[in-house]
């Protein structure tokens, strides 16, 4: 086993453990904090896969943005952050079975399937080549994303204006 592999398994174990904590923690704020660690672990995995830009995006958007949004959502919901809120319901056993069945299916199919195909051709994940692709080959998706973001902005305002009319 190379050093990289050792590091990979450590990071993967850390990420998985944090993900379990997200699902199993009793206090919903603890779940959100554990999610930060999961996102960090995923960013580290991206780094190990040479996808540095993706790792930066992961930290910027998920660690810095999504978790903040999540924490705000918890705090602006009355009393949900207080202790004693049930995070589980009676279907936890059933969903655990389903989750592990799907996981087993995905794992077996991926392990078998991707072994047949072999490793993918090496690609350049450098930020500069990503930027070039984005602005030449993928210019249509690039501009379409700006429309999508505009629609999202309009949506955010419509959702939040609700509160203002009540005040």
């Amino acid at each position, binding site marked *: 086993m190379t050093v*990289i592999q050792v590091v990979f398994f450590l990071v993967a174990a850390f990420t998985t453990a944090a993900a379990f904590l997200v699902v199993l923690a009793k206090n919903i704020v603890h779940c959100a904090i554990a999610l930060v660690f999961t996102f960090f672990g995923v960013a580290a995995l991206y780094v190990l896969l040479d996808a540095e830009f993706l790792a930066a995006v992961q930290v910027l*958007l998920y660690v810095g943005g999504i978790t903040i949004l999540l924490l705000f959502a918890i705090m602006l919901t009355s009393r949900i952050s207080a202790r004693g809120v049930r995070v589980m319901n009676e279907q936890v056993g059933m969903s655990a079975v389903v989750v592990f069945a799907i996981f087993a299916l995905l794992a077996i199919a991926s392990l078998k399937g991707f072994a047949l195909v072999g490793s993918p051709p090496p690609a350049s994940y450098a*930020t500069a080549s990503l930027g070039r692709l984005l602005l030449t080959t993928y210019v249509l998706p690039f501009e379409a994303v700006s429309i999508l973001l505009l629609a999202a902005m309009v949506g955010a305002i419509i959702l939040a204006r609700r509160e203002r009319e009540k005040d």
Partner: protein
Amino acid sequence: MLLSYLPILILVLLAAGFALATLFLSSALGPRRPSKDKLSTYECGIDPVGSARERFSVKFYLVAMLFIIFDIEIVFLYPWAVILNSLGLFGLVEMFFFLGILLIGLLYVWKKGGLEWTT
């Protein structure tokens, strides 16, 4: 190449180690004489007012949502900035379209009072 991430790893380990060590040491070594005042929430010496678990205003949420949208915009700006030199005018025009559309979004948010705290 991964070697350049070694300092980051060391920093993360040091930071986590320092935080954990401080927590452990202060609970292991510090004397403990609890009283009612000591156990109350620390608010710079003033008696705490109300519960800490108050409900936040939805305005925070709006700000966070807008923050993420503009965060995504930055994700697209960064690789563009790296290669702007070689793309020339063409790259500049493309990004102007991208930013122009988002500027309309900003204008909309502004006009609708999304950036105002009090209404």
